[in-house]
């Protein structure tokens, strides 16, 4: 569905959105993500029966943040040793071309193994109370086991932001809540600081050649997400911001 808006349409009660404005902004964001060539696509999903509960979602593979504790580092080393031992056996017994492929792995130890990725489902929903988008997410290990809150702090939250997020509580911390459309538990980032955040962003308006102290509907989601997303492993590439 294409949405045509006059350029520089602003949310009527910036930084707050109405549900209709959220839907428009969401569809524009999807168009930006397609243009940006993102392989992990954002989709718009509606409730199967009821209108007005639509949300954005995307499934991502995200590298696991490794714990800094010495204990964990030891755990990381051991599997590689096992692989080395196996590799030697295979080279001696099997097809030498297989050995060559495995040697590549030895050359590049920075390649992550399968259990060092997480699968994250990111949902962007609209909060009718706070009138802003909210980032909901659920995370699983490679084998499908969901992460609990402690594991989310250890393996998903970016280490530099960890202390902030853990102590933020109501002001931007992570909690669980029922997804407003699906009614199942999701983790989410508290939205009550979002309005303050959006008020502090300044965007340069190229057609009017001035600095605007508010974001257009078109730019709203990508700007908001580029601030809140990285905390939980979600980055918004520069391509989203390029005029094409």
């Amino acid at each position, binding site marked *: 569905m294409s949405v045509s808006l006059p350029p520089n349409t602003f949310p009527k009660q910036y930084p707050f959105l109405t549900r209709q404005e959220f839907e428009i902004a969401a569809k524009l964001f999807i168009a930006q993500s397609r243009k940006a060539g993102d392989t992990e696509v954002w989709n718009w999903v509606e409730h199967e029966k*009821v209108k007005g509960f639509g949300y954005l979602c995307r499934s991502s593979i995200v590298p696991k943040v490794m714990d800094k504790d010495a204990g964990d580092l030891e755990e990381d080393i051991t599997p590689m040793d096992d692989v080395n031992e196996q590799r030697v056996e295979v080279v001696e017994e099997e097809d030498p071309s297989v050995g060559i492929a495995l040697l590549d792995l030895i050359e590049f130890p920075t390649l992550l193994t399968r259990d060092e990725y997480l699968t994250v489902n990111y949902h962007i929903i609209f909060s009718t109370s706070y009138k802003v988008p909210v980032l909901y997410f659920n995370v699983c290990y490679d084998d499908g086991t969901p992460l609990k809150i402690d594991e989310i702090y250890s393996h998903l939250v970016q280490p530099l932001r960890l202390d902030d997020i853990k102590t933020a509580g109501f002001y931007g911390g992570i909690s669980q809540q029922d997804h407003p*459309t699906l009614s199942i538990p999701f983790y989410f980032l508290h939205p*009550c600081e979002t309005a303050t955040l959006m008020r502090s962003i300044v965007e340069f308006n190229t057609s009017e050649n001035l600095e605007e102290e508010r974001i257009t509907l078109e730019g709203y989601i990508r700007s908001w997400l580029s601030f809140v997303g990285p905390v939980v492993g979600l980055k918004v590439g520069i391509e989203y911001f390029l005029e094409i």
Partner: protein
Amino acid sequence: IEAPRCSYFPLLTSQVRKYFGDMMLNFIGDDADIWYDVDGTPLKWHYPIGLLFDLHTGYRPDSNSPPPLPWPVTVHFKNFPAEKLIRANAIDATQDFFMSMIKEADFLRNGSTKKVMNLSKNDQTQLWDGLWSKNYDRFWSVNYRLVINDGQTPRHIPLRIYLPDNCPVIQEPVSPVDESGNKLTLGNILHQVLPELFTSPLPSENAFAVPVIHGVIPQLDMPIIWASQNLCYPDNFLHIVVLLGI
């Protein structure tokens, strides 16, 4: 067990554990692993008990049959359904949820959470303590200030509407007055939010849909402000279950 409508299931857990403990069936694990279900449906522990009853039984107070009491609830000590129920860390999680509802209600009424955040630590504790210890005066000494809102007309009424068949919860911001400042009634609000179910703000003889609050069908002509101040749950929200069918 006699459970207060305004309480929460995790607040009953210690009583439940003691009951089984007295029968020499001691549960070693964490309170957080205990969960409740009715007819195979896990009960959302962060919903007030009265709301869960109205929602799950679908009992029409205007019907001729008596209410389905006692309500048979199954308690589980293992296999916590983490994909369906929010992880509970027993009492702390219930208190956190409760406080976040109070803050959300404040935000809806006033456009900010200043009022709640400016309550002294002592007052904030009083709210929760009053609730779980069933001390009405203690609870209301603080809650009164939140609910009366210094006599200021709230911007929006904290309200949640529950429809049957796993419908998403409806939480639209509703103003308690119209453009001319006239007080809106409960009927006005229901008609505004669910016009197909409430075709008019006025009560009708064979209404297809009825609202239920605290197990009672309220009069549609009550001002929504009055309903919010007097019929809200301890979390400051009006939780309205809508039942369908004659």
